């Protein structure tokens, strides 16, 4: 069920095996030098490897020293915990990167400072670069400031427009409510009971007046007086023709 395959030999070991001849020839001396160089690289590489492996073992030992909780955790809680731990790893990595960046920046600035102190301060190239950088930075800041001010103006204009719109909306709303109120009042007035009572009274009075008029006319007619000659009597009799509701 299991097999294993042989390995590929390292280049260095093949080399060291091949050039085992002693001699005073220059190319062999060169080969010996190359061999010792290879040995040095191999040793350095092995040193780096061993360091890394030692680091790994140390971290494993540290990890095992932490107490792991033995109680049974639910499935979804496990997921959440694992994600938390992964996020922690990411945060640590990010922090490490930031610190490295900060360190690199500090190293760069000290190196630059030392370089400047060492050389003549009138050293052209570096100073020209720095002056150029400063000029560009000033330009950048100025244009950023200008763009910021323009944006502020734009924002003010927009705010004003919004306010005007809101004011006009309010006014139109007011107009509408006023119109509605007027209509309501009109309807109320038309339907109110007082008006109805007044109208009823009016009708009654009209009827009474009509009756009185008829009585007067009949009186005049019945008295066998000549009403056509007297203008007042004429008027009273002829008033029968007029419809009282039109007065």
């Amino acid at each position, binding site marked *: *069920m299991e097999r294993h395959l042989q*390995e590929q030999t*390292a280049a*260095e070991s093949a080399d060291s095996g091949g050039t085992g001849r002693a001699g005073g020839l220059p190319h062999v001396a060169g080969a010996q030098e190359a061999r010792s160089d290879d040995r040095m690289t191999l040793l350095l590489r092995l040193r780096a490897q061993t360091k890394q492996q030692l680091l790994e073992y140390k971290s494993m030992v540290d990890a095992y020293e932490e107490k792991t909780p033995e109680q049974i955790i639910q499935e979804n809680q496990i997921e959440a915990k694992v994600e938390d731990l992964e996020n922690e790893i*990411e945060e640590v990595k990010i922090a490490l990167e930031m610190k490295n960046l900060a360190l690199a920046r500090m190293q760069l600035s000290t190196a630059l400072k030392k370089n400047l102190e060492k050389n003549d301060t009138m050293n052209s190239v570096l100073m020209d670069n720095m002056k150029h950088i400063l000029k560009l930075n000033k330009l950048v800041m100025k244009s950023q400031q200008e763009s910021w001010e323009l944006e502020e103006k734009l924002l003010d204009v927009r705010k004003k427009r919004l306010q005007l719109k809101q004011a006009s909306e309010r006014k139109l709303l007011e107009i509408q409510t006023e119109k509605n109120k007027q209509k309501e009042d009109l309807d109320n007035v038309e339907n109110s009971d007082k008006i109805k009572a007044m109208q009823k009274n009016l009708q009654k009075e009209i009827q009474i007046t009509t009756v009185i008029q008829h009585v007067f006319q009949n009186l005049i007619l019945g008295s066998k007086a000549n009403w056509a000659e007297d203008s007042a009597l004429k008027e009273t009799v002829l008033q029968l023709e007029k419809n009282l509701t039109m007065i």
Partner: protein
Amino acid sequence: MSVLRPLDKLPGLNTATVLLVGSEDALLQQLADSMLKEDCASELRVHLAKALPLPSNVNRPRIDLIVFVINLHSKYRPEKQGLCCLHCEVCPPLVCFLALAWPPSLQHVEESLHHVDASFFLGRVCFLGTGAGQEHHCSLHRNTVLKLAHTYRSPLFFCDLEVEDFQATMAQRLVRMLLICAGHVRGVSALNLLSLLRTSETPPPEEL
């Protein structure tokens, strides 16, 4: 030993060992050959296994990386399951049905995963799905393998191991991973690499 533990032995000087677990022998053999052809300064050892647990009588170096190879093409094999039924007539048919539920490639891998210690999954395990290129032959869905890899928080690679170029590229990637897991690369550890290889947590979009 029934459970594989990482870092349980001292490392060999300048050696790195990888264990390829998969049910298809030919694929593993080809992959192993391409990996050995890779040019690297450390010595590589490749162990092949059909399934874990490994026999404990063999003296083997510490294993730095385990690659589980899952073949998306692997078909169900009903005749083998039939043999299984003949042997154990006592077992109810339900068990045999469950055994048919997964293709043998994935089944082997899932069973082998039980024999791996939990601390191996901190960057020393990876899954390799082969045969995803030919959709009509696939009897195993990509999502199944994705979910498996997500459960075990390990990186997942898809590669058509039958194509020469892809195989060579994959072998190169695996060799690099192996070197990091064995500690041959200064400044990068297996856990570091794992968090670098982590894909985004959003689930893949459903295929139409």
